[in-house]
């Protein structure tokens, strides 16, 4: 599969310095503790708009989950591709992904229907 093919597949220009041949060029790590989540080239870059709960929710008041829109993800088909990762209990057919070492998250989500995982580029570090 050539680079241009994977770029055109989604009809979106991939101008991401971390993506090479459609996958993550670098290791994916936790932003907070550096725990290794994904090895190089193990996630496929996808653009899709999703609401993802904020890592830090405001306390007090009525517990309405605060979200933000996230557009860039690494798609991971098999959960055992992850090096270290946590899966939360299921909420509305999703599990959320967290750091296996410091529990920071969500760094992405897991779809119970497709059994695929999606890691938000904005919630992790590349190394």
């Amino acid at each position, binding site marked *: 599969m050539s680079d241009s093919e994977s770029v055109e597949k989604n009809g979106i220009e991939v101008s991401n310095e971390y993506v090479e041949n459609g996958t993550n060029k670098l290791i994916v790590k936790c932003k907070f503790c550096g725990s290794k989540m994904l090895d190089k080239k193990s996630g496929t870059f996808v653009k899709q708009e999703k609401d993802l709960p904020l890592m830090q929710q405001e306390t007090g008041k009525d*517990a309405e989950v605060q979200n933000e829109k996230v557009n860039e993800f690494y798609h991971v088909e098999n959960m055992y591709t992850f090096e270290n990762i946590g899966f939360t209990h299921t909420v509305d057919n999703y599990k959320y992904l967290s750091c296996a070492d410091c*529990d920071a*998250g969500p760094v992405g989500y897991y779809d119970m229907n497709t059994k695929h995982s999606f890691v938000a580029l904005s919630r992790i570090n590349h190394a």
Partner: protein
Amino acid sequence: MAKKTYDLLFKLLLIGDSGVGKTCILFRFSDNHFTTTFISTIGIDFKIKTVELRGKKIKLQIWDTAGQERFHTITTSYYRGAMGIMLVYDITNEKTFDDIVKWLRNIDEHANEDVEKMILGNKCDMEEKRVISKERGEAIAHEHGIRFMETSAKLNINIDRAFSELAEAILDKSAGREADADHARIAVERRPSRAPPARACCS
């Protein structure tokens, strides 16, 4: 694309009475009551961790078990696929220690017969409230021929080590079955621990 990136996959379960600290063992102990994170509110179902043992890349899938479950309600489906079980009691609570025997019986009845077990005496940071001596823990483990360790989820003492040892025991078992004539025991590469130096109570 779908190349396998590991050698072995071990499914591990945390089992034990309510309140012994199973969830804290899986979830980093947080005593920060002023902020809540989304993750801590929902709770962790399981974790995938990768360890290297004797040159093999092993994925551990570690499951917490539902709090209110009691040994008499846990049946075969609960243990399905489990290759290792962490049986946890609380060193400050006699009842949770007495129940270890019942849990062991339940495991014998319902789990895969060659499931690897390990007993954990958790909360070893609470020396002043201790009611179960380390010797009693060691004795019951010895009696049943299984491994034992004291842990603290709070201070992160022996947690990673316990999972490494359990994984190693499962690896030994499967290696034995393969009748592998390789006697050379390669040193186990442990993952660097984020734990402070182990306290005397748990060493």
